């Protein structure tokens, strides 16, 4: 599974993506975020206030409690500033 990072999150991690294989107990996107944070101090620190981030699953924004359910790509999205 691919995990994408954008904007200042991408800069802080010094990379735009990770290729990961989470264990079976990682069921939802929220689980995935917790699992990623437990493995990566920089990510853990950058997401200290998780409420500001949105998540996408296969290029659609979805709630944090959405099941991974075979997702190919998950993105962690800092607050957006388009428009």
């Amino acid at each position, binding site marked *: 599974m691919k995990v*994408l990072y*954008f*904007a*200042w999150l*991408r800069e802080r991690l010094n990379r735009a993506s990770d290729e990961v294989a989470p264990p079976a107990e990682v069921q939802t996107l929220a689980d995935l975020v917790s699992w990623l944070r437990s493995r990566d101090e920089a990510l853990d620190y950058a997401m200290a206030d998780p409420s500001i981030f*949105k998540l*996408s699953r296969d*290029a*659609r*924004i979805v709630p944090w409690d959405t099941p991974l359910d075979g997702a190919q790509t998950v*993105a962690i*999205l*800092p*607050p*957006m*500033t*388009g*428009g």
Partner: protein
Amino acid sequence: MIRVTADGFDAGAEANRFAASHTDVGAMVTFTGLVRSLPNDPILALILECYEELATNELAALREQAISRFGLTDAAIIHRHGRLVPGETIMMVMTLAPHRKAAFEGAQFLMDYLKTDAPFWKQEETATGARWVVTMPKDKDARSRWIG
């Protein structure tokens, strides 16, 4: 019409084309976002990062929602990414409707959601470096008025 693009576009020509694409409409509203440089806080450029596939999907869904919610005849969103200099057009929202109320409300709705839910991130390039633009709390407020 949804277009997420690194290329510049002619906002006036787009508006004319959009207006001409439908008969039996009475009202068109356009919103154009421009790169701004203030005399007391000048920027050299605005750099827009984008998750293109997600942007296309979310803007398309947002467009459908606005059309059905406000009874629009049509709606269009064009959004650039990449490096833009002051005066350039960042993005444009257009609505066509039988009457002005729907056209205005549809355009405002699209803008309010786009500000918080479209995966673009702005960085301001100044003489001393680059800085990420922070979300304005007022953008969250603007969006919340459409809920419920």
